[in-house]
């Protein structure tokens, strides 16, 4: 009985905190889980940074099933969480259903556009960042052949590939770009073995730099590239440290910043369409001590110059999703 009392007390407090209205923000990860070394993990990093800087807490959930998308949104909204941030285009349908029912709650969706007065849609100019790493790939390549390995074959990933190919051609018009996709389903985001096979296939076709835009699959691409002694390019998070001296650079997509900003803005968050590109630091390429020996001063100068020109609008990188076509690469 003496033991029961504190237990019951704890249960009661927990039940109370669960039911009480909370002004905490909430973060919903996609099925990939929060430690995918890539996209979801970047979001998690942003939320953690916010929690450390403000000393406040936030709610989070890793989904287990499709039916939970709408459920998690509604539960957080009903509990008073505000704003609610979700990472991944797959939430679009659920959010479209839910948003109007909770006009006082602000939602942020990353990588997809959803209409709604209380929705902020954050999209990234991945083609711009990919353009920069494409230039670096072309300059680092000795065989004049570079590779691209995408995750799931969706317009978003083709956007990466297209920007990359344009960057390659800009630095070296004679270079060849080999592009492969891992698959056509969400499983393609988490298939390092297939990623490794594709890398080997591209190496046999002469590629000596490969760019992986494939979520968890990229881990296999980077590993194989390091094993086979060619260079690779990481994506989303800075992945240079995974194989120091073997990863040329990473195309960083500041998903964490988008989460951080949404959390910081809190309930007064501005809604609407938000584009994170080179101009506002939403995408870029990663430089640190792990890849410094690989990147020459000349390379960095050329890339920084292009970055400035893209930011100012002087160079226009083609966005695959604007017209579903790519002048520099055919799929």
């Amino acid at each position, binding site marked *: 009985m003496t033991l029961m009392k504190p*237990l*019951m007390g*704890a*249960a009661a407090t*927990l*039940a109370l905190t*669960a039911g009480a209205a909370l002004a905490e923000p909430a973060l919903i990860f996609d099925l990939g*889980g929060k430690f995918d070394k890539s996209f979801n993990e970047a979001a998690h990093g942003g939320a953690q940074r916010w929690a450390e800087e403000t000393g406040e807490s936030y*709610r989070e*959930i*890793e989904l*287990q*099933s*499709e*039916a*939970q998308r*709408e*459920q*998690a949104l*509604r*539960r*957080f909204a*009903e509990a008073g969480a505000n704003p609610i941030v979700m990472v991944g*285009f*797959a939430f*679009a*349908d659920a959010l479209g259903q839910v948003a109007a*029912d909770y006009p006082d709650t602000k939602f942020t969706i990353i990588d*997809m556009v959803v209409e709604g007065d209380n929705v902020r849609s954050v999209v990234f100019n991945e083609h711009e960042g990919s353009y920069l790493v494409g230039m670096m790939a072309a300059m680092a390549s000795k065989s004049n052949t570079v590779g691209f390995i995408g995750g799931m074959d*969706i*317009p*978003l990933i083709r956007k990466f590939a297209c920007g990359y190919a344009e960057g390659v051609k800009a630095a070296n018009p004679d270079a060849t770009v080999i592009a492969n996709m891992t698959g*056509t*389903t*969400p499983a393609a985001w988490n298939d390092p073995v297939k990623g490794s096979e594709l890398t080997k296939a591209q190496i046999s076709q002469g590629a000596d730099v490969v760019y992986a835009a494939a979520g968890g699959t990229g881990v296999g691409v980077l590993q194989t590239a390091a094993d086979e002694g060619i260079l690779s390019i990481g994506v989303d998070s800075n992945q240079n440290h995974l194989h120091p001296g073997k990863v040329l650079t990473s195309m960083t997509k500041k998903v964490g910043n988008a989460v951080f900003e949404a959390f910081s803005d809190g309930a007064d968050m501005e809604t609407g369409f938000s584009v994170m590109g080179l101009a506002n630091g939403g995408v870029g390429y990663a430089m640190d001590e792990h890849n410094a020996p690989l990147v020459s001063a000349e390379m960095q100068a050329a890339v920084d110059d292009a970055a400035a020109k893209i930011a100012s609008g002087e160079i226009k990188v083609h966005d695959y999703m604007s017209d*579903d076509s790519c002048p520099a690469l055919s799929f």
Partner: protein
Amino acid sequence: MDKMPKWADVVLIPLISLILAALLSALVILGIGEDPMAAVKLMVNGALGSTYGWGYTLYYATNFMFTGLAVAVAAHAGLFNIGGEGQAMLGGLGVALVCLLIPWPHWTLALAVAALGAGIFGAAWAAIPAYLQAKRGSHIVITTIMFNFIAAAVLNYVLVNVLRPEGSMDPATERFPEAVHLPSLHELLAPIGINFSKSAPANVSLLVAMGACLFVWLLIWRTPLGYEIRSLGKSEPGARYAGISSVRIIMIAMLISGALAGMMAVNNVMGEAERLVLNATEGAGFIGIAVALMGRNHPFGVFLAAILFGFLYQGGAELALWTSIPRELIVVIQALVILFTGALDNMVRMPLEKIFLAVRRGQN
């Protein structure tokens, strides 16, 4: 004479198994530094404490009723149908085609035909393993499990290449038209004055599932066909000696089983998502095996076991939402319940039988 009274077999053994699983889960939760009492309370409150929680519990339970019944019907014929997952996937395709291709005037008509479509697709998917078993003796466990993978690949191909709307990134069909929207329990219960949660996905297909339970009970215990199915399940040579065609009964039992598994799609595809997504079944076909085992292949047992597993699913979701217990651990808890109620049945049964025998001897 039976070793145990019937109530012990039906009630006591599942109950003890459950308590054992719960105790072990509590230890695991303690092990990661969370409070098991609070976790249990959260699960019960979250799954059964409100009409909202019930709505989700019953939604999951509806899925498990269909797949549990599918396993149970096959089991009565001595067949182990592990292919519920694939049959339910194909059932989803049937539902999606019915809902998208035909302009329906009213949901009642759409429901009837969609259920039929789901049943036909599910049954067709079960027909090939059934034929191979009946005619060629290829073991049904192997073939049905292989057909799960083929079903996933078929669905994958159809969704990515055929049914995906232009420009969409999601491998999913477009939304079904408003006319085929199935009324949720909220809409069904509102006219009789019960205010059921609006946002829960439980819908009219719960009644279809309960109807299916009744149908299976009538079929197995009240029809000549059911008698033949049970005879074959008890002893194939015996059944053949009595003039029952094993080929015919294997085919029929598996067709019914596949149709039941397929009809699950009426709930999750038509009732909840209102579009066909890639991973619509989410393992319900496999949970059906545990449900049937726990329910002793009796429709009423399946009904209760399905609600228990619905509770575990919804309670687990609540745990994930409000505590820092990681999702992997929630799967562990669900797995422990399946392990104890399904796989480790004899661990509880044998000691219990000894106790009952000892008590009886003491009385004599």
